[in-house]
């Protein structure tokens, strides 16, 4: 059995880092569409890629959440990125690879990946 001690270690680590966190409203939100349409189109690996990248790069000011069907099922998996003070960016037909690029280019370096956005697709 995998040890639960690792889980306790995560708690200790988080306690040590608690002062570095910002709990304010200034977090960037990444919202993945996870209704039947999104799931069938491959939203779960996209969500997993965002989590993995956020974990790997220790992004503390990014919140990854899910939502239901946004109404553009044929463009799923859909991901919306809300950076505080900026216009919402909608990425469509996402994959795990594209998600990794959105993390590095958009979330970290502030450059919208225009080629994946809904504006480019339509």
């Amino acid at each position, binding site marked *: 059995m*995998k040890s*639960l001690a690792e889980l306790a270690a995560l708690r200790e680590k988080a306690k040590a880092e608690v002062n570095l966190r910002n709990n304010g409203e200034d977090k960037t939100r990444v919202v993945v569409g996870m209704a*039947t349409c999104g799931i069938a189109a491959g939203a779960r690996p996209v969500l997993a890629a965002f*989590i993995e990248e956020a974990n790997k790069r220790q992004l503390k000011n990014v919140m990854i959440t899910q939502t239901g069907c946004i109404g553009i099922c044929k463009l799923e998996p859909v991901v919306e990125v809300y950076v505080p003070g900026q216009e919402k960016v909608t990425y469509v037909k996402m994959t795990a690879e594209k998600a990794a690029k959105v993390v590095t280019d958009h979330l970290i370096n502030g450059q919208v990946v225009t080629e994946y956005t809904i504006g480019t697709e339509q």
Partner: protein
Amino acid sequence: MMPELSLNVLDIAENSVRAGATLTEIRVIVDTASDRLTITVSDNGCGMSQEQIEHVTDPFFTTRTTRKVGLGVPFFKMAAEITGGEFSIKSKLGEGTTTSAVFGLSNIDRMPLGDMAGTMSSLIGMNPDIDFIYSYERDGTGFELDTREFREILGDDVSLSDPGVMTYIKSYIDENTEECGGTV
């Protein structure tokens, strides 16, 4: 049609979340002797009325008001029935819903179980304020994950939505599944 059963489970369990469940149990039982794979999703959510139960497997029935189709339950039902299996859904208003799908384990049309670890880490991480139980049993050996137990270890310091915790949940399920003879 979903390419793997774990995606059906994710979709069905999202219904439990939306039904206001505080505890959702997902149980997978593999029984080679009877050539059966059984997946059960049960919750303590708001349940369904008799009328809703009667229509729930109809793709053109949905409780949503935004559009007229709801494919989650019909997909899961079809995935079971094409393998010579069975599907049932029991529900009581105010008490909860139990969805059960039985698959012909060796049937050529049975989709692989797939990434259950990914399904559970998404479910738990995206709904960190409610509880989930996941159990996997293959021919008598199995394991169980209970978020209430995890919550106790993590205390108030770390949320179940923490990326590190989600990664841990995924590897917890993957490694324990391997120890129970692997996935199907």
